[in-house]
């Protein structure tokens, strides 16, 4: 049912829109909200209340109250009174057993009273204790509003926009528009209604959710969250219409003036047939009343006594100062209250003004202003806290179904401050967050405790101003992955790719054991582009590295490489890698795969303190790296390069710039995997060419798993896997890297104080333990396994473990618990494979 065409209507009657409500087809018009289309189709009951399951209808039509919350396309708690109508959406009732019209849980309203007093969940359903699981199951199903669709998986697309403007105006009413018009510089106005043509920028329909520290204002516009910073923030959020407290004040047909106005003006709806108007309601609605053809049964200022009577939850009559009047519509206004929440969040003080009965913001922080009704530019006489009259329940808070009786009871039980009463009764804690109940509950408490409102105060205003989807806060779903320049090669080879930190790495190419054999017996090739790669250059580079590492690099000859471990000033192991001296003032440093950014920041931080004449440049992404390893490495490399590879001219731990297959490389002769090997670092853009040439040359690609076996056979430690934040160089048996005669290095102060409560050792055993398995001694836990693999070369299980220092001796017997039983293992201090390193040097 629509009125004939209204001059201000927002609907486009030439464009019908069909959607589904509770499985039935409903048609509205473009420009409708879901709520207005349903109202036009005859719907009056829009929801059932939170606790008592009372029928509820449209009250505010402004997206404030909870009465019109439905589930739209699987999204629960959508306020359909402001939700724009879209074709083919699926709208459903929520929080009901049956339908909004016939909700079986409505029984709670009729018989639940004595059983569900305020805070009932604290005092009933406690005994017998063993019945609690049953209670819980029932309550779980009844509690809450709406159901989250657990099968939905990130269906939303969200984004974040960062903006800086000179002036941000929140609110598109007359005061906000005037402020925006007069403002200097770049002006942005946020309007939660339709928006308007203006010489300044307008975001609409958008809602400012909060004012955070530093003047950060998050603004929700559809699926986009704007994070706005402004030199000046002008708050023009206007005022909120307040309800009155009287018996039956939640019946369907009781509404606020703004709801009536919007129904008639914007959607050409007839809100009812026979209306009673109470408070200032009538003053602003003359035009709408006439247009809608609503019969006026009575007009009254705020009376001393008022109660509403209904049938099946819908208004049938009111008793106004003792006179019974039949009506199906009661438009009530308890006055206005400035919408001060954003200002309170920004740090303003909120003060009660008794003459007009409102809370007004004062003492605004720098950079924040308020104009219009939000500033308290309202003329009115305060309404009484509660109107006399008996009958039905009288609700303070329609979100949480808190009645005046509940608040009085909480007071009797001693919850006499507003913050305590809030937590106990949950008044102001519902979806409206106090918009319609903050003032009412303060007034009620003041009356009942015989004090004034300023002594009661308000509860803390917290963000967000209106409920928003969590997805909006989470932002776009974006999981950054770092790919090496050779990633497509690994995929083409069918590699299993895994996450290591932010990197995607080839774990294995089908048969890790065969990959290990290839490296031992002939030739393997692994992509190690994930290594952190850092240039340290300058006259002070050598001294800087000497001071960053326990090891010494100033005596390293150009063209040579040395292993280094980084420690903190507390002596803890942080990262490790190799340092190659390329010339007197240029060092090439590698770090662990996940450590590159942290190491660069660490280097730069210390040098910000010391001021060595050295530049630190992270070249991790610019360069690729691959390790060509195996007994055939030299023979395989020879035809691809002119460089002299003879073992006495390109020695173990030499670094040389050579050209391989036409690609310029920094070749490092190091041996993480224990065989003769060349780690080739080259420009990322050339990596594919080099890789292809080496594979064509007979190298077998091997992955991370094979490398883990190979390095374990050498007893090489992986920082972060075998060490943790407690490990130091002595306990990890790497004290040989400490050059304590240097005047200073990061960690030197700790060297005399390093305690060794456990030591990192190798072990061999028959039963492969899982990583993390316990080392036990005399029935007590005496350590843990950090790495373990089966090694064909060694012919059994090998691993690294932390053990008590007494057990850290070659051949010592330890026990490792696997599947509940202890298995013997033998401590090994030397590498399991090629302990003298003859192969590396070959």
């Amino acid at each position, binding site marked *: 049912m629509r009125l004939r065409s209204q001059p201000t209507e927002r609907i486009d009657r030439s464009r019908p829109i069909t959607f589904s409500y509770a499985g039935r087809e409903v048609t509205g018009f473009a420009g409708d909200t879901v709520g207005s289309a349903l109202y036009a189709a005859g719907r009056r009951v829009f929801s059932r209340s939170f606790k008592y399951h009372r029928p509820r209808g449209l009250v505010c039509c402004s997206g404030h109250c909870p009465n019109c919350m439905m589930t739209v396309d699987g999204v629960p708690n959508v306020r359909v009174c402001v939700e724009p109508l879209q074709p083919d959406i699926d709208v459903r009732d929520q929080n009901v057993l049956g339908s909004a019209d016939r909700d079986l849980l409505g029984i709670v309203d009729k018989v639940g009273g004595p059983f569900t007093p305020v805070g009932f969940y604290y005092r009933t359903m406690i005994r017998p204790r063993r019945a609690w699981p049953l209670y819980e199951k029932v309550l779980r199903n009844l509690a809450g509003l709406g159901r989250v669709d657990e099968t939905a998986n990130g269906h939303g697309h969200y984004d974040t926009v*960062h903006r800086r403007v000179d002036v941000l105006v929140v609110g598109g009413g007359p005061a906000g528009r005037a402020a925006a018009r007069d403002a200097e510089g770049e002006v942005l106005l946020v309007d939660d209604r339709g928006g308007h043509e203006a010489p300044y920028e307008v975001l609409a329909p958008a809602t400012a959710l909060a004012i*955070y*520290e*530093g003047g*950060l204002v998050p603004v929700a516009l559809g699926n986009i969250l704007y*994070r706005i*910073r402004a030199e000046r923030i002008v708050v023009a959020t206007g005022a909120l219409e307040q309800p009155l407290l009287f018996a039956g004040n939640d019946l369907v047909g009781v509404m606020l003036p703004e709801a009536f106005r919007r129904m008639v003006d914007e959607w050409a709806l007839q809100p009812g047939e026979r209306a009673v108007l109470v408070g200032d309601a009538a003053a602003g609605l003359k035009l709408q009343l006439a247009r809608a053809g609503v019969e006026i049964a009575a007009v009254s200022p705020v009376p001393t006594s008022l109660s509403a009577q209904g049938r099946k939850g819908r208004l049938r009559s009111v008793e106004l100062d003792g006179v019974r009047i039949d009506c199906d519509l009661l438009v009530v206004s308890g006055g206005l209250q400035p919408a001060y929440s954003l200002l309170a969040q920004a740090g303003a003080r909120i003060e009660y003004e008794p003459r007009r009965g409102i809370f007004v913001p004062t003492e605004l922080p720098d950079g924040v202003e308020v104009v219009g009704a939000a500033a308290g530019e309202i003329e009115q006489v305060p309404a009484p806290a509660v109107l006399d009259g008996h009958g039905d329940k009288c609700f303070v808070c329609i979100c949480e179904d808190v009645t005046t009786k509940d608040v009085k009871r909480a007071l009797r039980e001693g919850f006499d401050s507003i913050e305590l009463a809030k937590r106990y009764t949950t008044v102001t804690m519902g979806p409206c967050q106090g918009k319609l109940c903050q003032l009412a509950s303060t007034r009620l408490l003041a009356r009942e405790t015989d004090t004034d409102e300023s002594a009661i105060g308000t509860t803390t205003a917290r963000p967000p101003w209106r409920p928003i989807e969590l997805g909006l806060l989470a932002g776009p779903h974006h999981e950054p992955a770092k790919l090496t320049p050779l990633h497509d090669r690994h995929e083409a080879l069918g590699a299993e790719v895994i996450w290591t930190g932010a990197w995607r790495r080839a774990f294995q190419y089908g048969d890790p054991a065969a990959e290990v054999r290839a490296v031992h017996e002939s030739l393997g090739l692994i992509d190690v582009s994930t290594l952190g790669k850092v240039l340290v250059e300058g006259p*002070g580079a050598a*001294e800087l590295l000497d001071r960053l590492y326990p090891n010494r690099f100033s005596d390293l000859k150009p063209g040579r490489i040395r292993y280094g471990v980084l420690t*903190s*000033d*507390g002596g803890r192991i942080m990262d490790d890698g190799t340092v190659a001296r390329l010339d007197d003032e240029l060092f090439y440093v590698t770090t662990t795969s996940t450590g590159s950014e942290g190491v660069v*920041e660490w280097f*730069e*931080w210390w*040098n*910000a*303190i*010391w*001021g*060595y004449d050295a530049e630190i440049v992270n070249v991790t992404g610019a360069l690729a790296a691959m390790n060509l390893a195996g007994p055939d490495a030299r023979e395989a490399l020879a035809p691809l390069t002119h460089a002299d590879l003879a073992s006495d001219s390109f020695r173990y731990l030499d670094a040389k710039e050579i050209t391989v297959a036409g690609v310029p490389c920094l070749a490092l002769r190091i041996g993480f995997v224990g065989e003769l090997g060349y780690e080739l670092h080259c420009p990322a853009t050339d990596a594919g060419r080099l890789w292809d040439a080496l594979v064509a040359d007979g190298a077998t690609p091997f992955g991370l798993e094979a490398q883990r076996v190979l390095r374990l056979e050498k007893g090489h430690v992986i920082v972060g896997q075998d060490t943790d934040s407690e490990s130091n160089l002595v306990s990890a048996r790497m004290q040989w890297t400490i050059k304590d005669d240097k*005047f*200073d290095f990061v960690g*030197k*102060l*700790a060297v005399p*104080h390093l305690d060794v409560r456990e030591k990192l050792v190798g072990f061999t055993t028959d039963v492969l333990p899982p990583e993390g398995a316990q080392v036990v001694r005399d029935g007590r836990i005496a350590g843990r396994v950090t790495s373990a693999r089966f090694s064909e070369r060694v012919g059994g299980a090998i691993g690294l473990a932390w053990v008590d220092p007494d057990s850290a001796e070659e051949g010592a017997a330890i026990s490792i618990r696997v599947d509940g039983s202890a298995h013997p293992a033998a401590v090994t201090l030397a590498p399991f494979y090629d302990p003298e390193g003859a192969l590396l040097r070959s």
Partner: protein
Amino acid sequence: MSFLLTCPHCGSRPVDEFHFQGEVTRRPGPGASLRELTDYVYFRDNVAGLQREWWYHRKGCKTWFVAERDTRTNDVLRTLIPAPTGVAAPQ
């Protein structure tokens, strides 16, 4: 935590672009006792008031600098790139 911080290079930027490295501490000289060492490594003044602290513009120019911030209000009085202590042995 959404205050603005002035990077000495990039100017006023949201604080989430920066990495916080904690109070500026005094590193003890050679031969520090265990107590001096643990004081330096583990203990902080944690003042309610003006604090000198290290920040790093991680999502920007990657500069380390020192800010003087009131820990009660997050008002940043000034930011600066401090003069290095020098490369000589600590006293």
